[in-house]
């Protein structure tokens, strides 16, 4: 099975986020970068498909030189080769255009299945999978918390509000992964894996390599822009329920404030 996994490098989920002086981006100095956790689930799911059906796993990403580290990590986990999309013309591209380049890079690999995270833990737009599927004219099985395949048909379970849906589609198909670490339990890169990863093929691709015109990616083509960032409103200082009360007294006082002051119970 020829598998492509599209990944994104994001700040670690424990990162403290600060707004940069331009008021439109975040301070990236000192951040620890990781593979977006949902994309890590996708890599794990891809490696499991490969161990069952054979084939090849290619990881694809877009971004500045630092993202090569994410690709190397994926190779160390067991992916076979990697594609790094970057181009000076893409610096100001909006996410629809970045996704177009990623779709082109994925298509070039002639995959039977494309996997990726259902969302990224940075800008959290959760739309890349659906967009790639629409661009390729493929079905998309979204938010999978399980994934099975007999090599011809893919079946997933998708949580919805108050229940669960089982979806299936023949190949080729795009699947986005939801769930959690507890479900997918993505493998760690082993030391031999890390050594091997250094020798695995990693291809750099520019827009023209992908048959795309850099003129379509200029700043004037962006349909959306971030105009400002702001921190969440500061919560007013909370109140500690204490006043020397015993356990029952604190419980009674908490019920009182929630009922009379907050009016939420």
């Amino acid at each position, binding site marked *: 099975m020829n598998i492509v996994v599209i990944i994104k490098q994001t700040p670690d*989920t424990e*990162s*403290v*986020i600060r707004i940069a002086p331009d008021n439109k981006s*975040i301070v990236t100095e000192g951040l620890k970068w990781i593979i977006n*956790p949902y994309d890590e689930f996708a890599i794990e799911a891809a490696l499991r498909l490969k161990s069952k059906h054979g084939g090849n796993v290619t990881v694809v990403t877009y971004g500045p030189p630092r993202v090569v580290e994410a690709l190397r990590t994926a190779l160390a986990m067991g992916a076979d080769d990697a594609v790094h999309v970057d181009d000076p013309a893409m610096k100001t591209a909006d*996410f*629809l255009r970045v996704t177009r380049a990623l779709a082109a890079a994925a298509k070039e690999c002639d995959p039977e299945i494309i996997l990726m995270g259902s969302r990224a*833990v940075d800008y959290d737009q*959760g*739309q890349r999978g*659906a*967009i790639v*599927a*629409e661009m390729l004219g493929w*079905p*998309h*099985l979204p*938010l999978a918390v399980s994934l099975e395949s007999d090599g011809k048909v893919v079946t997933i379970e998708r949580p*919805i*509000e*108050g*229940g669960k*849906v*089982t*979806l*299936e*589609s023949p190949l080729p*198909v795009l699947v986005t992964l939801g769930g*959690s*670490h*507890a479900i997918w339990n993505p493998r760690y890169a082993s030391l031999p894996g890390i050594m091997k990863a250094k020798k695995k093929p990693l291809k750099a691709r520019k827009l023209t390599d992908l048959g795309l015109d850099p003129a379509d990616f200029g700043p004037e083509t*962006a*349909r*959306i*822009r*971030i*105009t*400002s*960032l*702001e*921190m*969440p409103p500061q*919560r*007013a200082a*909370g*109140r*500690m*329920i204490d006043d020397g009360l015993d*356990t*029952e007294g*604190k*419980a009674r006082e*908490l*019920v009182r404030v*929630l*009922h009379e002051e*907050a009016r*939420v*119970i």
Partner: protein
Amino acid sequence: MGNCICVIAEFRGANFRRVTFEVASEGRRIADSLGIGLCAVAVGSGVAARAAELGRYGVDKVFVRDDPALENYLAETYVPIVAEAVKMCDPAAVILPASVDGRDLGARLGARLRVTLVQDCVQIACEGGKIRAKWPIFAGKCFAWSDWSEGTLPLMSCRPNIMDCLVPDESRQAEVVMLDLPVPEARSSVKSIDMDTSGKVELSEAEIIVSGGRGMKEAGNFVMIEELAQVLGAAVGASRAAVDSGWRPHSDQVGQTGKVVTPNLYIAVGISGAIQHLAGMGYSKYIVAVNKDPDAPIFSKADYGVVEDLFKFVPAFKEEVIKLKSTCS
């Protein structure tokens, strides 16, 4: 500049989901500030019967595609129909729910219409005829404001439980326009749907959530959380630590790699408050933290904090809630 604001309705079966009324209400506010009408698109099976009711929330006209083949949401069948209906409306902006299905539909609709979606909006501003949207990034550690370039259709999904519903005007009915668009062939299909019939409150729709963390020590102790949740009519949540330990299913996980929730009341029990958890619940209206460690970071987010042994406090708190409920009813 289009003719109207267009909202996409969402159903569960033949009934509207509440978030539909939220996006209709928000659509009405924007339409009024632009001095234009409000249209809705309703796609599903058995949805025609209730479509006119959207008038109560300010919708002037509803475009309906009702077909048994559209019983369940599937991007391949829904998106082409919704896209055609949106084109008929010629809207100035499109708003839909950032529900599980709405997020998927919105993304694919944006790609099909070649416009850019902003997902999970928590605020929409309309000044001088220009629409701007605010959305959480890094799971709410920060917020972004964005706008669209000239001539681009703003497409927005709105986070549930954030936008205020209008007081329904029972006397108003929307004009219903039945569409006769073909249901597209789909390669993907819905094999089954299992709804949870246990009567438990769903996390993302709950007004009150009681969550347990590492401090619960073992799976069996969550009975205490469930009992408290039951008397409060609350849903049960969990931190990543509790889910990774196998004490709770992943569907309970609240945080940056779980669900982002916005209840009126969030009670964090035995949760220290890792930044990835705070990101998932920090937008709750009121937060209560119960932890024996007075230095736990969760207290910095809490409106009310209690430093106590949870195994003693939670049962005592439950008893007090029962007393309150018996005097109020």
